[in-house]
């Protein structure tokens, strides 16, 4: 048995989905798009039921990906039952979607979710509603698991005798005519197709034209103009109005308002957090505290994982980690190169993957809390007018800010953006924000080369990256990532207390996805890097005699144009694996801070930092970008973008500075 969950956004659809399927769920993408698809299974009275969570939508037009996915799923997959999850505290608008669903499917179970919240607003006559609609209506409080058993029962045994949404006589007459005209095409549901043809729905129009129904479309156009003339408005406004009056009428039949015009808690909170003067500082404070929390709490876990895998070098010597121990142990029964490959290559790679996990888990803990509570929608409201200049909606600020911590979770956080184009734009910009690891390297180098004012040097890099991101965002949004100018009509839902269950499921999904998919790529890349750094066999790991070293020397003449020494180039190659490694590599190759200071001029050092600011994101970020976009082309674009910007700035700075004779 196949059951589909439909409903508006913010109606607690996923809570009901979780309550129905428990942990037995699979999260993926709908084919060809980045819209999330959730599937799960449950057993009701011994019957195996497959449950699909459709994207949250307000209507079923052909204007957004989510809407097209929802209606195509219903038409093509023909679920046995549709469960329409309704936020009962926002009954009228939620009933509008039901009117559209009623035209597509006859077996709909209506769930009045958040029923406890609704009872403070109005008294709802559930039985009357069920009688008028001819559908089973179940009340539920998803977050407390209330009503789930009843819902299961109705999915299996509900009686369906649905009421038809009637249009005025003038319109019905014309719908009937189109129904008759499309009979030869044998498409179902015929009435729905007829209505959509009349409404001039783009997708349906295309489909009918492909099926050879040109004459139908022609006749429909005529009928459409007749209706528009009779009622004096455009067809879309009219048809939506007719359906809304059904929803409006039903709403007033079954709901009696209790408390009109009172001040709500949501209104009080909004009065503060979107306040003219305090709104923005509060936002910055919340973001600062959230990220502090994430990175501070994650740090000891990351250090511990790093310690377990890589051990620790102290003044008195090296405390071996798992990698060293395992390497020595394996030496007993396999050649050194193989043990080194397994341990220094792959096991160390696994360690790198695991160190990301605490950050990702905590970050999604916070993000789910912000999203489920309703605050994220306010962020969009606060930041919209700044972010829209770079082609993003207000929520686009969050992944960008996160990038200063780590680009991996930041790229994953672009999921908060609903528009596909904006997501891609946001992912393309994110690696240009220097992550904590790069900032650490910059701080280290600034301290060596600019001891009088290292902070100023660091700030210049941060500000440059922000300017570049902003300008590039502006350019991208006008060119390659130009959206379909999707309207930004944002719902500001009431504040709600998120549930621990909802948040933990969300957190687990993200971390598991990262570990499994991106993790594999990272371990693979680690193995490849090992091959180039350790071969030909017998050379010192990563030394100028290794393949990486040879490559660096080969490319060195080009490097001089940017002021890059061969050692700096080797460190950048290793930095591809993890940016903080750059410091270690420079140490190993030069021997000491002193030697590093003498190997480069301050101009060269700054040029090196400029290159490092932008050049390719690290392997983990790339793996995540690929995992999120599933596009090799796009991932390659991000690498290229980084190299071009890095080369551009470092070349321009190095040569300009030399030309002007600064610092010589």
């Amino acid at each position, binding site marked *: 048995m196949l059951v589909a969950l439909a409903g508006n956004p913010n109606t607690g659809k996923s809570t009901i989905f979780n309550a129905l399927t428990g942990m037995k769920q699979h999260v993926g993408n709908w084919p060809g798009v980045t819209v999330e698809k959730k599937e799960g299974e449950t057993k009701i009275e011994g019957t195996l039921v497959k449950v699909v969570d459709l994207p949250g939508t*307000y*209507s079923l*037009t052909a*204007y*957004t990906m989510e809407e097209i996915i929802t209606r195509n799923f219903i038409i093509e997959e023909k679920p046995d039952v549709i469960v329409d999850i309704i936020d009962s505290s*926002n009954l*009228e*608008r939620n009933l*509008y979607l039901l009117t559209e669903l009623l035209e597509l499917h006859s077996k709909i179970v209506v769930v009045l979710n958040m029923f406890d919240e609704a009872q403070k*607003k109005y008294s709802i006559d559930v039985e009357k509603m069920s009688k008028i609609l001819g559908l089973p209506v179940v009340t539920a409080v998803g977050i407390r698991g209330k009503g789930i058993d009843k819902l299961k029962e109705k999915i299996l045994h509900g009686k369906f005798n649905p009421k038809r949404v009637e249009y005025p006589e003038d319109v019905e007459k014309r719908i009937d005519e189109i129904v008759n005209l499309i009979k030869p095409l044998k498409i179902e549901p015929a009435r729905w197709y007829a209505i959509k043809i009349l409404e001039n729905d783009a997708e349906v129009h295309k489909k009918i034209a492909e099926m050879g129904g040109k004459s139908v479309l022609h006749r429909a156009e005529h009928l459409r103009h007749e209706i528009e003339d009779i009622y004096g*408005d*455009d067809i*879309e*406004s009219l048809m*939506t*109005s007719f359906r*809304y009056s059904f929803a409006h*009428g039903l*709403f*007033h*039949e079954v709901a009696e*308002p209790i*408390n*009109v*015009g009172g001040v709500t808690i949501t209104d009080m909170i*909004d009065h503060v957090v*979107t*306040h*003219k*003067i305090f*709104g*923005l500082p509060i936002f910055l404070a919340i973001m600062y505290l959230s990220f502090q929390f994430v990175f501070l709490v994650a740090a000891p876990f990351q250090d511990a994982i790093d310690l377990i895998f890589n051990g620790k070098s102290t003044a008195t010597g090296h405390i071996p980690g798992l990698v060293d121990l395992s390497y020595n142990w394996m030496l007993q029964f396999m050649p050194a190169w193989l043990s080194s490959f397994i341990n220094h290559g792959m096991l160390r790679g696994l360690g790198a993957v695991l160190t990301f996990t605490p950050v990702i888990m905590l970050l999604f803990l916070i993000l789910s809390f912000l999203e489920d509570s309703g605050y994220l*929608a306010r962020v*969009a*409201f*606060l*930041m*919209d*007018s*700044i972010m*829209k200049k770079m082609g993003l909606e207000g929520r686009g600020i969050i992944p960008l800010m996160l990038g200063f911590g780590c680009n991996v979770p930041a790229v994953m956080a672009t999921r908060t953006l609903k528009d596909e184009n904006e997501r891609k734009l946001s992912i393309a910009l994110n690696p240009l924000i220097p992550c904590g690891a790069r900032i650490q390297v910059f701080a280290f180098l600034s301290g060596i080369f600019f001891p009088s004012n290292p902070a100023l040097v660091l700030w210049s890099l941060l500000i440059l990256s922000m300017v570049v991101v902003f300008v590039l965002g502006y350019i991208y949004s006008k060119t390659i990532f130009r959206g*379909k*100018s*999707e*309207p*930004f*009509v*944002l*719902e*500001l*839902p009431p504040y709600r207390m998120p549930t621990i269950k909802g948040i933990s499921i969300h957190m687990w999904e993200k971390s598991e996805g990262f570990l499994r998919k991106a993790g594999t790529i990272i371990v693979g890349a680690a193995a490849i890097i090992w091959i180039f750094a350790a071969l030909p066999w017998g050379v010192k790991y990563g030394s100028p005699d290794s393949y990486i070293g040879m490559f660096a020397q080969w490319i060195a003449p080009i490097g001089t144009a940017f002021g890059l020494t061969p050692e700096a180039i080797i460190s950048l190659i290793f930095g591809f694996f993890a940016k903080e490694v750059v410091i270690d590599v420079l140490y190993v190759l030069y021997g000491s801070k002193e030697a590093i200071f003498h190997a480069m001029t301050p101009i060269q050092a700054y040029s090196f930092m400029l290159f490092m600011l932008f050049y390719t994101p690290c392997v983990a970020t790339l793996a995540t970008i690929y995992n999120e976009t599933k596009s090799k082309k796009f991932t390659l674009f991000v690498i290229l973008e980084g190299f071009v910007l890095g080369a551009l700035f470092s070349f321009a700075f190095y040569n300009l500075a030399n030309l002007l004779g600064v610092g010589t």
Partner: protein
Amino acid sequence: MLLSELKPGEYGIVKKIRGTGALHRRLLSMGLLPGAIVRVVRVSPLGDPVEYEIRGFFISLRKQEASFVDVDKVTPLSFIPRNSDVRVVFIDGGVGFVHNMGAMGIAVGKRLKIIAPCCPMQVKTEKGVFTLGRGMAYRVFVR
């Protein structure tokens, strides 16, 4: 006038949604339809977008988007001061509520005189003087 011209705290009744395509359709499916009442809640600290209440829920629209919506400015009866003369333009409720109000002489097009302001308020209609609670007065829109 345009929805984008209303100020926070003001109400409008939607006349027409102009424009085409996705924006047009999205506004409609949110329930911004001719006859719907919209309240301007607040403006974002940076001046754009603006939060509106419609049919009991809250949405944020950019000013540019809100300028596709034509409205007439209206006021809930509960906000009207003593001694004003007003005309009813809209009653927000089901058949029953509209009927009950009609029995007191409060119907679309009728004139009212406010004897005592909200709440409870006293209004003089052509059928006499009646007392209205906040819940009622808030759902009658006048100009």
